[in-house]
């Protein structure tokens, strides 16, 4: 009997804790976004964050996209050749990249880079009193640290995904033309003919949402970190894990909204 009660109590505690976190994160996000509407603004900090997310993530995201496009072409060719549908390779590549793999894989890569970096930076500022110092220096830390990063993440991710889409298709094209015997123009023509604005736009909307979630998780966990180096390490892990899971979960929700 006590065992059952203990188990139930543990479950209850977990659920309550989860609700509290969700509430706290929602309030944090609202506060952060509300600062985007009220001056002063920090264009310099926005620019720095935008560069960090949009520009310095280009190598990782590009490599991911190219190899994903290449593997996709190879896999779908070998799969589709079983029922003579090899010609659909270009279509499969462009559809999967723009709708799903571009935003999701770019999101996961950026979560690893940016979510961790933001959590570590803001977390270190927290445990060394730098966030308190901001308050005493007539600067709201949410406005200074969080708002510009949230905006930068939301705007930079779609741009990254445009690059990922193009390079992903080029990866497919590379394998298609050099290895699978497609003609260069035929491949590109069938890609362009098949591609629809809706596919690309849904992918970019996903990217913006993922960008917001990644920066939100990085900032939230950093901002609330406690207790020295260990606390900052924990915040970094929490930021990457939570944003990765949220990306995958939200990907389903958004897909359901667009195409369900």
């Amino acid at each position: 009997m006590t065992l059952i009660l203990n188990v139930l109590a543990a479950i209850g505690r977990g659920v309550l804790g989860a609700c509290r976190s969700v509430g706290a994160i929602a309030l944090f996000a609202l506060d952060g976004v509300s600062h985007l509407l009220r001056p002063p603004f920090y264009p310099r900090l926005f620019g720095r964050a935008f560069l960090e997310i949009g520009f310095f993530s280009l190598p990782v995201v590009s490599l991911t996209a190219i190899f994903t496009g290449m593997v996709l072409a190879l896999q779908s060719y070998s799969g589709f050749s079983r029922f003579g549908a090899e010609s659909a390779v270009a279509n499969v590549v462009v559809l999967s990249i723009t709708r799903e793999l571009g935003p999701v894989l770019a999101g996961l890569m950026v979560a690893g880079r940016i979510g961790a970096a933001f959590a570590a930076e803001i977390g270190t500022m927290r445990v060394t009193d730098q966030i308190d110092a901001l308050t005493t220096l007539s600067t709201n830390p949410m406005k200074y640290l969080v708002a510009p990063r949230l905006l930068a993440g939301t705007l930079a991710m779609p741009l990254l995904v445009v690059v990922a889409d193009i390079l992903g298709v080029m990866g497919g094209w590379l394998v298609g033309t050099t290895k699978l015997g497609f003609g260069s123009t035929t491949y590109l023509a069938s890609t362009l003919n098949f591609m629809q604005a809706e596919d690309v736009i849904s992918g970019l909307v996903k990217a913006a949402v993922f960008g917001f979630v990644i920066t939100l998780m990085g900032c939230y966990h950093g901002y609330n970190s406690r207790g020295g180096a260990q606390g900052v390490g924990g915040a970094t892990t929490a930021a990457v894990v939570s944003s990765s899971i949220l990306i995958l979960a939200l990907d389903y929700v958004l897909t359901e909204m667009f195409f369900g």
Partner: protein
Amino acid sequence: MTDTPKIRLRGLTKRFGAKTVLDGVDLDIAAGHGMVILGGSGSGKSVTIKCILGLITPDAGTIEIDGRDILSMPRREREELNDRIGMLFQNGALFDSLPVWENVCFKLLAQKRITRARARDKAAEVLAQVGLAASVGDLSPSELSGGMQKRVGLARAIAAEPEIIFFDEPTTGLDPIMGAVIDGLIVDCVKTLGATAVSITHDMASARRIGDTAAMLHKGRMVWTGSAAELGQTGNAMVDQFARGEREGPIGMELRK
């Protein structure tokens, strides 16, 4: 009006989990005065200051600045009040993503009282006051020694010429001469700028120099308030033991129980 203390604490209480750090602190700090807060390590001196700054929310009690309760103040007014307060953090808390000059002029830049072009010169001026060369302005805080970081933190706290300045251990980690220079600077803030300076220090010589009044925090309460010049011969056994750094006395006995 002149009788209203600049800062008035009444029954200030703060617990962290089961541990009661502040247990009803009462303190009056007169305007334009140097106040020194003494107390053992971990007695809650930094927590007291952080409560006044609004960085920690107390569990009970009131904090008044210029006769107005700051805990029930709307956020806007609270922020305006903070504009007139400066703080040197115990560990410096410099922004390591910014060069020293931007650290020093951070508040002036945030309040748009100075242009970025002017800020470098202004920073050099304030750095000179704390005994640092203008070239330090271009370094990053991580390139400085501990004592230099402390002095940059001090420069940042006073650059905007605030009405109330809190110094959390301003001279800890400085050599004796530099310590005396910094003490002189704090006295100047009070004498020339008319600021109210609240300092935490473990250095009795420094306490006598920078303090008009001293208060001692022990077991979550202010157990004594009096003239800083008398430290060491106040007649209060606890304070005298603390000021002279003696092992035998009421404080040690309480710990041994």
